[in-house]
């Protein structure tokens, strides 16, 4: 090959590689833009909450004592469900939540690392002892959804699951204390 065609060819190869690198750059930028756009406009973010709690005493007093567990509708209408994830059960075992309203799930563990997901939704978080896991979401469909532990936590891990009962506005009736329990079906 003479020098002239080789130089032309190498320039052409360099051009191809630069074009490809530009295309990859555009794809990476588009993917990051989609993530940022979704976060800003649709409020879809990875759940992130850094809040410490003492796992040795969380059941004795305060937010995660027994009488505070389950779903509570505050005076301003905000819905919060407090759940303890422990070997090998969720307390309470059934969580009643409304459809079409923003809800907050707050979870804590007194023993080992657990994790939750709610089937058919984007709810998915770890529950690490020493921290409060918090997820904001809004359910779009009524029905019973499975909430299994998705982080291996011991021999009974496969038996560790709860039910999320998503109720319509007519069915979601808080009592005088603002508490809502699962409807019997």
């Amino acid at each position: 090959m003479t020098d002239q065609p080789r130089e032309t060819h190498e320039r052409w190869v360099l051009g191809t590689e630069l074009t490809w690198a530009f295309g990859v750059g555009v794809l990476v930028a588009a993917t990051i833009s989609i993530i940022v756009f979704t976060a800003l406009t649709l409020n879809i973010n990875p759940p992130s909450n850094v809040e410490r709690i003492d796992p040795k005493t969380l059941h004795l007093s305060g937010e995660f004592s027994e009488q505070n567990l389950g779903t509570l509708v505050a005076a301003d209408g905000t819905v919060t469900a407090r759940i303890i994830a422990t070997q090998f059960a969720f307390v309470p075992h059934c969580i009643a939540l409304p459809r079409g309203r923003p809800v907050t799930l707050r979870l804590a563990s007194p023993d080992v690392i657990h994790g939750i997901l709610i089937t058919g939704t984007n709810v998915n978080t770890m529950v690490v002892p020493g921290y409060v896991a918090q997820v904001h979401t809004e359910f779009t469909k009524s029905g019973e959804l499975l909430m299994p532990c998705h982080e291996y936590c011991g021999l009974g891990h496969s038996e560790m699951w709860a039910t999320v009962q998503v109720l319509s506005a007519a069915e979601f009736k808080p009592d005088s204390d603002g508490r809502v329990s699962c409807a019997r079906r």
Partner: protein
Amino acid sequence: MPVDQPRPAHNPLEESHIDEVALSTVLRTVPLGAAVLAGSAVALVVLGYLAIYLFVFLPRGIVG
């Protein structure tokens, strides 16, 4: 003529005449094919990502 006489090794490179112009043409075409193949593969992955994002992830609702 003996049947089992060893024959000299066949070396195709010795016999073929490599035309510089033809070689240059091939070297132009091969990277183009690689680019088309890689582009198609990346396009399929991107389409799969967009399909899962639009038809699975977004309908599952907000979370944060």
